[in-house]
């Protein structure tokens, strides 16, 4: 299995308070789960990889290339897509403007490809077609999450990072996301922060457990993940 992302001895502090302690993680071609209780440092870890936070030490390598301390827009252009936990959207823009913005960033001036990918996003999430001209402020939580994931899937995504994508969603919608993730998992390497144990068992080939900023457990194979060793830490 080739290594897409390698994190070595990554530490991060908010001022005096250290949040991550010498994290070592390897992300392969299939999905990798990160689990842990609230405040364990899962979101900070994803933000640090995305360039939104600057690590105090350590290295982050994307397919061998060093991306530590790169600005977030350059990291995004390299193909790391980050979907934050807050289901945040730009409330004054329409759903279509969101898709166009993501397509412009990742596909440049190739209008044909942009149109194709926007159509494909709407096929993946048919609910988006109905609301494409609505202001994002009027979208439901589920629609916002669909929009965020659709935006993250544009272009040649080399790593998709999802922070609790099913949190607060209705069970039916969680199943839909699960299906999309399972489908995409074959095409795109993924880092998935989740509390949903069945989803993690279903999708991930490796799971790390984070506790107070340290990796305390690793299920390193599909079988170990299926056995759910990680679940006893939740």
């Amino acid at each position, binding site marked *: 299995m080739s290594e897409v992302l390698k994190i070595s001895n990554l530490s991060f502090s908010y001022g005096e308070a250290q949040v991550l302690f010498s994290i070592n993680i390897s992300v392969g071609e299939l999905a990798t789960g990160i689990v842990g209780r609230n405040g364990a440092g899962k979101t900070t870890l994803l933000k640090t990889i*995305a*360039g*939104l936070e600057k690590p105090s030490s350590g290295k982050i390598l994307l397919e061998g290339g060093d991306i530590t301390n790169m*600005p*977030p*827009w350059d990291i*995004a*252009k390299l193909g790391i897509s*980050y979907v*934050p936990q807050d289901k*945040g959207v*730009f*409330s*004054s*823009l329409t759903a279509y*403007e969101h898709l*166009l*913005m*993501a397509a*412009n*960033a*990742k596909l440049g001036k190739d209008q044909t490809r942009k149109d194709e990918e926007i159509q494909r996003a709407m096929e993946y999430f048919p609910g988006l077609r109905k609301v494409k001209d609505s202001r994002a402020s009027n979208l439901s939580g589920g629609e916002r999450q669909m929009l965020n994931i659709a*935006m993250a899937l544009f272009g040649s995504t080399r790593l998709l990072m999802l922070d609790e994508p099913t949190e607060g969603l209705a069970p039916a919608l969680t199943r839909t996301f699960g299906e999309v993730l399972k489908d995409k998992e074959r095409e795109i390497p993924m880092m998935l922060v989740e509390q949903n144990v069945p989803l993690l068992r279903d999708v991930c080939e490796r799971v790390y457990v984070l506790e107070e900023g340290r990796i305390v457990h690793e299920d390193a194979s599909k079988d170990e993940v299926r056995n759910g060793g990680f679940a006893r830490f939740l």
Partner: protein
Amino acid sequence: MSFAKKIMKIDLPQIAGVAAFFCILPFFLPRTLSIQVLFYGLLALAFDIMYGYGHLLSFGHALLFGAGAYGAAISFNFLTGNPIASISVGIAFAVVIAALIGPIALRKRDPYFSLVLMAFNVFFYQLFVAPLAPWTGSDMGLTITKIESFGILNFSNKTFLYYTMILLSIVLMILTKLFMKSRFGALLVATSESERKVESLGYSSFRVKYYSLLFSAFLSGISGALFATFLGYSGIDFVSPTFNIMIVFIALIGGSGTFLGPFIGSFIYLALSYSLTVVLGWHSSVYLDGIIGLVIIIVMLRFRGGLYRYLYKVVKDVYVSEPIR
């Protein structure tokens, strides 16, 4: 998308409405006041690109307007009487100032951004009053002494000049609409909501704000340059730090974050000033700021979001265009 398609996407009736309004305004108000309403409206629109869409409250747009006005006036008097060249000098002066101060101011947000721009405005104001007095005329302002006619453009015919200015303003309004409808406009709005999210999509939020400031400076500079050309004069008040307060008032009274709001605000502000001067005489200036302050309080409390949004609600069934962008 072709340029023609982009033009069709913008709200042309709004621009046509503004143009028609300014064509008939000189029948009710003095021509100089009418052109002041137009250019203060354009200036407030330039300010509102940064504030209404980018949520960046600028206290430096008087500097950009004044730079356009003085750049053109100085060029007319000391470089060339050619109006195209001198107006271009005015625009360039405003854009260069914005290009220089932008990287410093845009590193900050909210009160610090406003205060950094205000500090630059004060600095340049002092520069214009004293060290540059031989070129700026200090607090007496600078009267333009030579403007050459350009083609059919005869600068001694003020009526013809007025309508030419309206034509130029229509072009500026179309440019502004194109900017706001472009992906850059969408990015500016997005940046105002979450810079981090914009950055994680692959855009530098600093660049979005910087290029928006340059466009805003272009619009402010050209408004100042054209206004000075029309008046044949550039006043020190144009670059005064206190002028910024008026620009903010105009945008807020009319409706920040809307296209027509700044023009409505400009008309109300200047019509009110003019009417009070006519009714109360020249000593009205003693009360003017107080009365205008009262109007602003009423508008802010009764018509939250500005008069345009209130009027929009009243006529919504007739005219259903979105207020924003």
